[in-house]
């Protein structure tokens, strides 16, 4: 499909979805009416800038079914997102929605090179979270054998990976590292397992983390992006090029905006990612602000696909810490920590305010095998801490105090990464 054909299709679908929510979701009807917009004002995809944004708060405020467009009789599945504060977000799917989701997920797996001869373990949580079932349906659709491992009981999972010759896995990148660690502890070596494809998502990760996972599990790791408010995993996927994630843009239209002024940004500039669902029936959303920060890429990919690509998630606008007036993302700290072999891929940021001045402490874990006799004096440990502090300062532009922790003492998150303790809010 040419770019022009894609734009025409997107424009047609956008008009249809606006008309659909206008007639079926009072929330959107009132919003559009208050802005003096009717569905007929939306004819091409470029008209999208006229539409209002939808926020996580809108979803919470309309809990549970306020933004649902389809009648309850058409809904065949309901997922709920993990809300740490306030109401969870409820998303209902019609049969057609599940079909679109499954097809989009199958596209992702095909791009990863997964086929019917693969044995594929889905190690996202099954349940209210969209990860497990979303990936599961896609694997079944392409005809690979799905192993619904879910999360928990990592040792049993590691044994299955070895004994069944599992070739693919979908999980969070931090779980992949945890799995690698568990296997190493159990004495399962890389040549005893046959993993070759990893679909990693549900939390931001870095190139350094990819290199580490690929090395330790002996697979090729691909990004799998999604969010339940839009669909679930399958919104975008990396191809063999591992250079940006192709967006299933015939169903999910992406924009990147300046999170402060809400102005759309040109391709290549980093801002907040916004999605409009173009075909969804259950709970369509217009210009949903994901809080994820990234940039969009145009142009044909090395794999031949022409769909727009998104960069890695560079942070969450929620996660962004403002320390002494400087924007700091935990992912920046992560990339520095992972670039030094002496440290394990775990870290914690502790932000505090002492005498009206913000302080940042970064806790890192010493990697056991790098604690050698050269480090048996406080002077040597201090030198290591200073080396990390200097790198952090050059990346973050603010000073951080480094605290070295013993191996295995920083908690490894099994789900969404939680790497920040901000004591200023308490």
């Amino acid at each position, binding site marked *: 499909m040419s770019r022009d054909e894609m734009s025409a299709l997107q424009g047609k679908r956008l008009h249809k979805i606006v008309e659909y929510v206008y007639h079926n979701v009072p929330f959107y009807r009132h919003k559009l009416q208050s802005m003096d917009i009717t569905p007929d004002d939306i004819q091409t995809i470029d008209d999208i800038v006229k539409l209002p944004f939808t926020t996580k708060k809108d979803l919470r405020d309309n809990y549970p079914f306020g933004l649902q467009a389809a009648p309850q009789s058409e809904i065949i599945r309901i997922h709920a997102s993990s809300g740490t504060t306030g109401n969870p977000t409820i998303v209902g799917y019609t049969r057609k929605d599940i079909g679109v989701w499954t097809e989009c997920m199958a596209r992702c797996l095909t791009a990863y090179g997964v086929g019917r001869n693969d044995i594929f373990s889905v190690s996202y949580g099954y349940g209210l979270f969209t990860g497990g079932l979303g990936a599961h349906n896609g694997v079944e659709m392409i005809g690979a054998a799905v192993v619904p491992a879910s999360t928990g009981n990592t040792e049993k999972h590691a044994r299955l990976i070895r004994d069944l010759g599992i070739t693919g896995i979908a999980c969070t990148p931090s779980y992949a590292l945890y799995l690698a660690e568990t296997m190493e502890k159990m004495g399962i070596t890389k040549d005893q397992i046959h993993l070759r494809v990893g679909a990693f998502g549900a939390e931001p990760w870095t190139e350094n983390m990819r290199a580490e996972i690929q090395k330790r599990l002996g697979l090729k790791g691909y990004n799998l992006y999604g969010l339940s408010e839009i669909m679930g995993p399958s919104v975008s996927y990396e191809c063999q090029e591992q250079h940006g994630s192709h967006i299933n843009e015939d169903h999910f239209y992406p924009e990147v905006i300046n999170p402060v002024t809400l102005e759309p940004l040109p391709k290549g500039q980093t801002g907040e990612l916004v999605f409009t669902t173009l075909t969804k029936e259950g709970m369509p959303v217009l210009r949903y602000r994901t809080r994820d920060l990234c940039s969009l890429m145009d142009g044909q990919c090395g794999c031949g696909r022409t769909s727009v690509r998104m960069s890695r998630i560079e942070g969450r606008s929620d996660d962004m810490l403002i320390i002494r007036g400087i924007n700091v993302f935990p992912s920046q700290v992560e990339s520095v920590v992972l670039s030094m072999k002496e440290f394990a891929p775990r870290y914690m940021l502790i932000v505090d305010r002492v005498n009206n001045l913000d302080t940042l402490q970064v806790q890192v874990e010493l990697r056991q095998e790098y604690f050698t006799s050269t480090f*048996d004096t406080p002077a040597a440990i201090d030198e290591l801490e200073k080396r990390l502090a200097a790198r952090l300062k050059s990346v973050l532009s603010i000073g951080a105090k480094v605290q070295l922790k*013993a191996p295995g003492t920083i908690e490894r998150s099994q789900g969404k990464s939680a790497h920040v303790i901000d004591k200023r809010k308490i």
Partner: protein
Amino acid sequence: MTINQLSIFIENRSGTLVKVLDILKQSGIQIIASTIADTAEYGIYRLICSEPSRAYQELKDAGVAVALSDVFALELDNEPGKAADAVRIISDADISITYMYTFLWGGKGILIFRTDQTEKAHDVILQHHLSFIDENDLAGGGEN
């Protein structure tokens, strides 16, 4: 002349030292001498023990940050001024001592020190006929 010392990174939190000591106890390792170089947030726990290689492996398997370091072990008569004499000989030879500590073993004083100038220290100890002990001496157990 040199013996194996275990160097262990421990955080200044309750329980971390106990964990290390429990592992050694369960493995039947005897601690002969120990010292802690501590800072506000962590410490380097240095210890001389029976079977250092096995102790090292047990700790390593338990996930502890542990290293084996070669340290010099001089044997001194248990009399005032003997440690001062020995240290003077070493420092007069321009050998810088990274750290040192002493303990009593079998009625003798043992002076442990670490230096990066190992060959030079080796020569000086022989030239001045300083007494020293080896790994094997410790394995035999103290007889006081």
